């Protein structure tokens, strides 16, 4: 074999670089690497519809999740409650800029950008409005893969509730419910998004580079 091999008929494992013939998958099937066991290609069920709906729901839940108070404490007759947004304001107020930045980035900004990105991509596919800029957009979207930490923040809420329940009167507010729903929506929208399908479609739509390659 040489450089003229048709690369669209082959697929390589991301983890170990093993080369396979591209399998033809139906919705809901996935192909795994024989050598290292990681997923090669996955075709998700109803990817576009599902990620569109999940990310839309997530964006609607975003405001209540951020602005409604998550929990409050009562101690010695004084009551104080805080939302996610308060969290950042208080941290800035008291001079903890670094944690304020981190909480803002990992628990607010990155999840929102990812939700909005998933919504934009699935919207473009759903209503067939593909633009060449989507290539760059979707590539940039992958940069944020590791940095959404809503699930960790959720565990943080649980742990600090355990901590507080001992010596204060703890009250849970509607914000917690909204936050949990927001977490579920943002996770599901990321899970439902079928990357291989989207890249294949984008390639078919904008394959001018491919044509250039074959000419040269």
């Amino acid at each position: 074999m040489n450089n003229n091999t048709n690369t669209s008929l082959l697929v390589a494992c991301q983890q170990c670089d093993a080369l396979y013939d591209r399998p033809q998958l139906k919705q809901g099937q996935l192909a795994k690497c024989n050598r290292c066991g990681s997923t090669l290609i996955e075709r998700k069920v109803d990817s576009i519809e599902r990620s569109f709906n999940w990310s839309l729901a997530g964006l609607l839940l975003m405001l209540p999740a951020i602005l409604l108070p998550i929990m409050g404490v009562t101690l010695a007759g004084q009551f104080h409650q805080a939302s996610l947004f308060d969290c950042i304001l208080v941290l800035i107020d008291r001079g903890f800029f670094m944690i304020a930045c981190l909480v803002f980035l990992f628990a607010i900004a990155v999840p929102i950008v990812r939700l909005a990105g998933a919504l934009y991509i699935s919207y473009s596919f759903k209503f067939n409005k593909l633009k060449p800029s989507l290539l760059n957009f979707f590539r940039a979207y992958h940069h944020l893969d590791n940095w959404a930490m809503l699930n960790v923040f959720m565990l943080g809420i649980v742990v600090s509730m355990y901590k507080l329940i001992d010596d204060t009167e703890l009250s849970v507010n509607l914000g917690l419910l909204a936050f949990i729903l927001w977490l579920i929506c943002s996770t599901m929208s990321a899970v439902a998004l079928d990357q291989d399908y989207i890249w294949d479609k984008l390639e078919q739509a904008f394959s001018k580079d491919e044509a250039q390659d074959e000419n040269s």
Partner: protein
Amino acid sequence: MKTAKQLELTLCPKCHKLNSLKAEPQQCSRCNGMFYQRKRNSLQYTLAWNFAALLAFIPANLYPIMIVYQLGIGDEATILSGIGEFIDHGLYPIAVIIFTASIIVPLLKIIGLFVLVYKVHTGIRLKPDKHSKFYHMLEVLGPWSMLDVFVVALMVTVVELGFVTSVAAGPAINYFTITVIFTMFAANSFDPRLLWDKKADNKIATQALLLSENSPGTLPEEKG
């Protein structure tokens, strides 16, 4: 088993499109991104981030991470002493969770990546299948170390009752976040495909050695 590298193919890390390798950095024919066949200077970057993370981990454990003020009197707690308090109060599940997230996971990541880099570099007792699974686990566990930071952030915000009780974050929190973020960078810059490459190289080298040992006098036998 053939790898993409042997056939001069290369996989785009972003869109997973196979490209035939022309020049490095290669431009992906699908997403137009520039990339290298293997992550550039992967081992060096991993080592550098790892050392930085290890350095930051020392002050993270020595300085107090959280200061609880009750009626104006401050009570400092480091990560370990905080866990000790949980055990004293009998909150064992929380103690285990915090201990795992803020001590075991960062240390496991740092030591694990050192071991992986060492194995790839020397090729001694390399088991790519097991090691790549281990690497995958490290990658997934990474963000969970941020738990302690979020807990402190929440405590600072929620427990704000003026003079009666308030919580402040200690200097360790900054070092700790640096540790976590650096270990995430370290894990990101490690390329698990190097494990398989090294294994394949080892095989070829030992085969060549066997052949050269057999060769004097007699003709080398053809072996698979």
